[in-house]
């Protein structure tokens, strides 16, 4: 189904410039005076309707999700629309980028801004390329005055000049999608360039615990955020972690010494050769007591206690980032923290789905570091009795799945039963075998996987589902779909 959407975009991309593009008035620029501006505005409105219609058609005919087609249409027919529309956000636009935590951080920030009375527009569907952001601008309410957009690292170079954000939030640089970006250093460089391309007066909010990222954006005078874990059991073990980036100084290549480490290569470090160090403590510090468990933790952000309704150290980072960004936009930290206490996780990020008497916890897994954080969270949670690992190898997941061998699945072995799923379920089974355990079921088909999971669990059990992006989509659809099917069965029985 998603392939159809892509194909649709491809068709439009090829035909568009010729058939429809010739109809487009190209020489419209808003610098010509009010009459031209209103003409451009009217034109944009018409094209907006058309683009929106194209998206709805795509959804209605079930050919695609309609999350990128409208954006593509508007980009073709009204170039510069994103730039013109972005100027109407009087309360400023925030762009969130980085490897992990974009969606959750953006959602947290949108919640904070919403609770303080701003009319917020955000690309919550996670469609974070140029087209996706354009689609959000097309279909979103016109009265929105604050924008929060998560943007793919690769799309930053084009979106930052168009959106002219007043705050840029950079979460982290972890190893992810090597078949797209080549290497983490490339991503760090992209983020650094984006920070340099901001309009003057804009603020950069960056993860101070990430040496690679911090070094790349240091020149932009960023506002730092970070995390401290006081619970020594939960704190990452000292020494090298296999899911981390190599510990070399980003300045001189000497080896880095960690004073403390929270996740993967995140922590406070200094170089033993050139004495380069990241800030300790950063301006916005989240202090975590016991980060374990899935459905909540107590932390304090910038000294203000906060009862979050989701667990995990990675979410402490997201919360700190959101509070730091909100304060750059003028929201006091106390208000931000109060708003965060009402925040509930979004799609596939510690989402809880009841199914057949069981509790499914959906956890999006993108790379070794993220997987390691989730494993630690799952192992420490008394509410999880079984864990499922779903790995797909489509473009959105990363086609090279070698990374699963860098993820710390060893910690799962010997504890609870493990089920493997996704297109590469058999690779997960091999991975667990070499970790010293074995999976009790391996099923590529999401419906059969669901059946297998039901077989090996009992009523009231909690099942943690760690899945890559498209595996998560497929699985979620299977869960929701089979629930509908059950209702239909009942109707059929009673009539």
């Amino acid at each position: 189904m998603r392939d159809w959407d892509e194909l649709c975009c491809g068709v439009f991309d090829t035909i568009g410039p010729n058939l429809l593009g010739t109809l487009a008035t190209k020489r419209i620029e808003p610098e010509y005076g009010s009459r031209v501006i209103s003409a451009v505005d009217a034109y944009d409105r018409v094209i907006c309707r058309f683009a929106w219609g194209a998206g709805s058609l795509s959804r209605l005919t079930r050919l695609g999700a309609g999350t990128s087609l409208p954006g593509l249409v508007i980009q073709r027919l009204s170039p510069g629309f994103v730039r013109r529309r972005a100027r109407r956000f009087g309360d400023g636009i925030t762009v969130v980028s980085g490897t992990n935590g974009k969606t959750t951080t953006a959602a947290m920030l949108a919640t904070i801004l919403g609770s303080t009375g701003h009319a917020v527009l955000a690309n919550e569907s996670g469609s974070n390329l140029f087209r996706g952001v354009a689609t959000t601008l097309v279909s979103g309410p016109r009265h929105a005055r604050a924008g929060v957009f998560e943007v793919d690292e690769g799309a930053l170079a084009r979106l930052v000049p168009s959106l002219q954000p007043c705050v840029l939030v950079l979460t982290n640089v972890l190893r992810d999608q090597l078949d797209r970006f080549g290497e983490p250093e490339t991503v760090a460089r992209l983020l650094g360039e984006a920070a340099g391309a901001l309009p003057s007066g804009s603020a950069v909010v960056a993860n101070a615990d990430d040496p690679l990222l911090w070094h790349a954006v240091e020149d932009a005078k960023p506002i730092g955020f970070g995390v401290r874990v006081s619970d020594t059991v939960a704190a990452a073990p000292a020494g090298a972690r296999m899911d981390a980036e190599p510990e070399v100084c980003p300045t001189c290549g000497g080896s880095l010494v960690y004073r403390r480490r929270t996740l993967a290569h995140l922590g406070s470090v200094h170089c033993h050769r050139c004495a380069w160090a990241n800030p300790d403590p950063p301006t916005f510090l989240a202090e975590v007591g016991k980060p374990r468990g899935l459905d909540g933790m107590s932390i304090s952000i910038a000294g203000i206690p906060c009862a979050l309704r989701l667990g995990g150290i990675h979410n402490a980072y997201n919360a700190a980032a959101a509070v730091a960004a909100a304060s750059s936009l003028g929201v006091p930290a106390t208000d931000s923290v109060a708003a965060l206490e009402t925040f509930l996780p979004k799609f596939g990020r510690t989402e809880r789905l009841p199914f057949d008497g069981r509790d499914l916890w959906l956890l999006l897994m993108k790379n070794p570091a993220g997987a390691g954080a989730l494993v630690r969270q799952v192992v420490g949670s008394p509410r999880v009795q079984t864990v499922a690992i779903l790995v797909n190898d489509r473009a959105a997941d990363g086609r090279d799945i070698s990374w699963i061998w860098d993820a710390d699945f060893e910690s799962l072995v010997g504890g609870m039963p493990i089920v493997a799923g996704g297109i590469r379920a058999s690779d997960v089974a091999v991975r667990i075998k070499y970790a010293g355990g074995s999976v009790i079921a391996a099923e590529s088909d999401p419906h059969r996987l669901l059946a297998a999971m039901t077989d090996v669990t009992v009523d009231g059990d909690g099942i943690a589902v760690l899945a890559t992006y498209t595996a998560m989509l497929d699985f979620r659809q299977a869960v929701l779909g089979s629930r509908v099917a059950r209702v239909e069965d009942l109707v059929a029985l009673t009539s």
Partner: protein
Amino acid sequence: VSDLVIVHLYPRLLRTYGDRGNVLALKRRAEWRGFRVRVDEVSIGERLPRDAGLILLGGGTDRVQEIVGKDLAARRDELAEAAQGGTVVLGICGGYQFLGTRYVMPDGGEIDGLSLLDVETRATERRIIGRVRARGALWGEAFDLVGFENHGGRTTLGASVQPLASVSRRHGNNGRDGTEGAVRATVVGTYLHGPVLAVNPVLTDTLLARALFPLNGNEPLGALPDAEERLAHADAARRVREEHRAKKRSMLVAASLIALSLAFGGPRAAREIDDDDGGRGDRVAPAAVVERPLMIPYDLARTAEITGTSRSSAGPRR
């Protein structure tokens, strides 16, 4: 006392593509057969153990390979001696390039390799990325290989090495001659990730048997129940076929679309619209985003700067 010593060179630096999985595969498969295995992780400045049976060199990012290159240059004689003595040396991706005679940078500058394999690599801007299925042959064993490759360098084989495997034309060492990897005596190089030893147990066992030769002689290793491995191998092979078919289909669609659009509007209209996008190349076809984004060449280019091994007067680029 151990029967087999596996040396993982620079485990914390060269590990971009799950190279730890390769070590784990070797270790487990030897242990399951009752051999005692020791894994030595050797990093910068640390000594190579004398009793190494198998040395593994993985791939890293450009920046890290710069750092490693310097240390590796100092180990040249030590590694050559080990290989001469029958130690199995396996280089993967960047590690494979290190094993060659030289690496030619885009500006023409050259970096000396370890010269354990008679191959040379030329850096290019266009990476070869994709799933691979190959027909492999090593020390009299023939087997199917699956994996994933992602490299900017084009490697050509000299007269004294054999390819590890044959692949379809667009893949492998250079995307031209249908070869993948290289072998000379006990030195093996390959571009395949997977990790290659985790999903290709026959290759793993072939390497293990050779590394255990001093202890085990020509005695074949016992068979293992490899149901999971065989299934994963078959699934990977199926994904190669599926991707191949999808590519064919989309090329057909693209060709017909181009023909259509030429018939309707002609190339002029297309150009005009392109220019209107602010000259930033606004045309982001879905395939382009995924397939060929902002890559930088996977090379050892700047190694020269640190090691000072550049032979050319052109000097390294910055």
